[in-house]
């Protein structure tokens, strides 16, 4: 990737963060948050996006962000009241802004259908608050196209003029992780700048506080920029610096020159005052002094004078500001690490865990007493290994917030489409789960939320008739429970209409008309493939897919989904997912002397077949009757080719499983060894895919065990049955 593309990528990544901040800020304000810091954060988010977009000349984005920013500025200054209507428009504007960012990311130039309307709405807002919108507009364009702007700017004076900017950061400016160099660089975008450094205040090294600010700059800016745009550069450091902007006399664009900084004088002072201890004592400055050329006074700004100025704190924050916009720093230092490295580490720790288990088993086999020093040392090793594993998994863990924060927008859209007022309540956003799981959570969640609004909530009239508030509530929550993450989507709607569900299931031939089903069984019918209660496929939750797709994707993650519903009170969907995809909960079984692992998520129950329940269909095909229904009985040993003659059903144990699409089958094994969490290992890495085998794992005895691919086994044996019949 070329460097510019990499920066662009970073910009879009940071845009996503800013958009999230923008949305959560607006939502907080809608919820009654009146903290001025919130509106500031919202404003900063839009401003940063605009700034970054300017750097990449993303015109559509700049235009919209500018209008948005103007309206937010009105609100920030108190001229525009943060009423509920205004905030609703702003939330929609935030959605459009997000779309524009993503379109720009794709390189999509198409007009956004809503951009013009919302921009107009925002303009009206700012206009209503008493601002001359037109002129705002002009200097806005002006700011980000300094080269071409002279034509558009009616008030631009004919001859190049300029300003003398005196800028003296206070220590606070750096402490808030701002960076003087970036501000100066920003300033150079406005025109031709000559920057002079004033280092008179720098004390002798022995008295120097590395965290303190001593430097100030005098910038002579010539060009078409006006005072407002200059002041805007320093907007976020307002109050943390002394800033003085005075127009140049007009005739002169030359450096003021008076208080230019003489580096050699300073160096002489440094050497004189602190001859010996200079190097060890000064932590940041020595290295920083090096790159400054001798005639420092008129060094062009393209070579940022930052190194001299930046105290350690600013250095750390510099990376985070790559998009050009200052933003709040988080508590606690973070680093960005290549995901591959983390993955490799997780793999290695997985091997360590297996190895530790093997060792423990060997020690047991060697007959050493539990109290022996070796066994006790091993216990400690086990504890340590577990801790390492947990800590390593925590590196890749992320809060579910990254998925949850996409949902408010979805709710707004679906609410607008269905005409149902909806409030989304989220809980437990900080709950952490492995990144690999998070990535695959968005689709099922989106579907479930759509479903909750479209099918779960009643129309406002019905709600009123039932004595409920018009606004429906959809609740999205996450929590850790016994080593898994549990995510719930609930609505306060009418609950599942069981009569109707059953009627549809019968009509579609999913169940027989005589079947007697418990309430719970009826509720779970909505997960059957081909089931959809909506009379016609709606644009919102229809799309030709149903809850069966949701369940399939949850199962693919090794999760389970259940529903509970109370008539008149609403429904709750509960998903339970593993915290990581690197391990799997398995049922360890033996078949013809081989040890195999079946994913526990697919297993509904285990049973001991009775001779009377098993019926032969000719050939090796058999079915077993379970509570009146017949499901195929598949001999795992036969399916995998471990034996030629089927095991008599009564000598084995059957696992009743439910594969993709809800098809049931009973897998006949020789015996069940137990339940265990296993680390998933690829078989393809050194060999190839094997039909009927999903992956491999290594058990406590150090041997490889195969993890069954239940769906393939069912499909294959079904094909054989068809051939046999």
């Amino acid at each position, binding site marked *: 990737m070329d460097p510019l593309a990499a920066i662009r990528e970073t910009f879009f990544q940071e845009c996503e963060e800013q958009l999230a901040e923008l949305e959560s800020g607006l939502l907080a304000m809608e919820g009654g948050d009146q903290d001025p810091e919130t509106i500031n954060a919202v404003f900063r988010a839009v401003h940063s996006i605009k700034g970054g977009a300017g750097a990449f000349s993303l015109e559509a984005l700049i235009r919209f962000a500018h209008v948005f920013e103007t309206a937010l500025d009105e609100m920030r200054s108190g001229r525009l009241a943060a009423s509920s209507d205004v905030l609703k428009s702003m939330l929609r504007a935030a959605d459009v802004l997000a779309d524009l960012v993503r379109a720009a990311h794709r390189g999509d130039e198409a007009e956004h259908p809503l951009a013009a309307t919302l921009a107009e709405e925002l303009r009206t807002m700012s206009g209503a608050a008493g601002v001359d919108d037109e002129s705002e507009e002009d200097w806005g364009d002006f700011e980000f196209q300094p080269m071409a702007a002279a034509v558009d700017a009616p008030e631009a004076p004919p001859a190049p003029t300029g300003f003398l900017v005196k800028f003296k950061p206070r220590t606070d400016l750096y402490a808030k992780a701002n960076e003087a160099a970036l501000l100066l660089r920003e300033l150079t975008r406005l025109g031709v700048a000559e920057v002079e450094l004033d280092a008179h205040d720098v004390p002798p090294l022995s008295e120097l506080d590395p965290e303190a600010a001593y430097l100030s700059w005098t910038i002579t800016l010539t060009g078409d920029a006006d005072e407002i745009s200059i002041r805007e550069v320093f907007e976020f450091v307002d109050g943390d610096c002394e800033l003085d902007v005075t127009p140049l006399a007009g005739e002169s664009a030359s450096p003021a020159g008076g208080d230019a900084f003489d580096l050699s004088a300073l160096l002489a002072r440094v050497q004189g005052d602190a001859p010996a201890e200079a190097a060890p004592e000064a932590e940041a400055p020595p290295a920083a002094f090096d790159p400054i050329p001798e005639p420092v006074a008129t060094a062009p700004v393209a070579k940022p004078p930052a190194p001299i100025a930046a105290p350690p704190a600013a250095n750390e924050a510099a990376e985070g500001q790559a998009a050009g916009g200052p933003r709040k720093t988080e508590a606690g230092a973070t680093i960005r690490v290549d995901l591959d490295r983390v993955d490799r580490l997780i*793999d*290695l720790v*997985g*091997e360590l865990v*297996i*190895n530790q288990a093997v060792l423990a088993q060997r020690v047991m086999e060697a007959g050493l007493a539990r109290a022996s020093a070796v066994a006790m040392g091993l216990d400690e090793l086990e504890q340590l290994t577990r801790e390492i594993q947990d800590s390593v998994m925590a590196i890749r863990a992320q809060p579910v917030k990254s998925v949850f924060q996409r949902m408010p927008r979805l709710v707004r859209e679906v609410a607008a489409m269905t005409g149902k007022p909806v409030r989304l309540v989220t809980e437990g956003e900080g709950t952490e789960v492995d990144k690999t799981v998070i990535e695959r959570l968005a689709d099922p969640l989106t579907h479930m939320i759509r479903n909750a609004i479209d099918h779960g909530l009643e129309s406002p009239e019905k709600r009123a008739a039932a004595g409920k508030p018009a606004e429906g509530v959809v609740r999205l929550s996450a929590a850790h429970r016994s080593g898994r993450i549990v995510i719930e989507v609930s609505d306060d709607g009418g609950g599942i209409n069981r009569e109707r569900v059953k009627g549809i299931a019968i009509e579609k031939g999913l169940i027989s008309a005589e079947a007697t089903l418990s309430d719970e069984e009826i509720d779970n019918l909505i997960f059957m493939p081909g089931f959809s209660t909506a009379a016609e496929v709606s644009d919102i939750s229809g799309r030709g897919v149903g809850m069966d797709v949701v369940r399939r994707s949850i199962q693919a993650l090794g999760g389970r989904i259940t529903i509970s519903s109370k008539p008149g009170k609403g429904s709750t969907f509960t998903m339970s997912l593993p915290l990581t995809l690197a391990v799997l909960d398995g049922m360890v079984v033996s078949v013809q002397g*081989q*040890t195999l692992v079946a994913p526990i998520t697919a297993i509904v129950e285990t049973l001991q077949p009775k001779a009377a329940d098993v019926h032969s269909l000719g050939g090796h095909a058999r079915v077993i009757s379970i509570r009146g229904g017949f499901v195929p009985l598949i001999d795992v040993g036969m*399916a*995998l*080719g*471990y034996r030629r003659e089927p095991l008599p059903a009564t000598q084995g144990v059957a696992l009743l499983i439910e594969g993709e699409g809800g098809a049931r089958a009973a897998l006949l094994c020789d015996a069940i060894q137990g339940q265990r969490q296993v680390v998933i*290992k*690829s*078989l393809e*890495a*050194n*060999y*190839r895919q*094997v*039909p*009927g*085998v999903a992956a*491999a794992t*290594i058990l406590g005895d*150090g*041997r*490889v*065990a*195969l993890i069954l691919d239940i769906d393939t086994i069912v499909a294959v044996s079904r094909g054989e049955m068809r051939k046999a019949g």
Partner: protein
Amino acid sequence: MNQITSQSGQNHAGGMRELISFRIGAQEFCVDIMAIREIRGWTAATALPQSPSFVKGVINLRGAVLPIVDLASRLGFESTEASDRNVIIVAQIGEQVVGLLVDAVSDILTITDDMIQPTPDVASETAKTFVRGLIPMEGRMISLIGLERVLPDMELEAA
């Protein structure tokens, strides 16, 4: 070990190369030492379903799942009844790591390219597939084996 061993570790220049030789039944074979990662004792393998008979199964090699190929069976000899006396040669074949089950590893040979005689034109497909040349050594004959097509899926691709 004999004097040939003592020559090992010398320079590779001038077409010199090192081979590792092993026994399968009464036959002697060798492969390029650069392809060999390690040599280890036999451990029971987990059988793989739907696999050719020469794939003995998979074993755990420090956390990686390693397929074991019975080289005797692969080369068209009678398949090996693996026991503790057998040896697994762990070889790198392209991106993959594979274990080769053999009877015993006998020697490291240092030879020059001109010592390798071309395989005579024989009818056996197996010979054509795997044998890259013959090396006469103290009255014995050692077949130089190419490992590229030891695994079954490569065979499928070729078919």
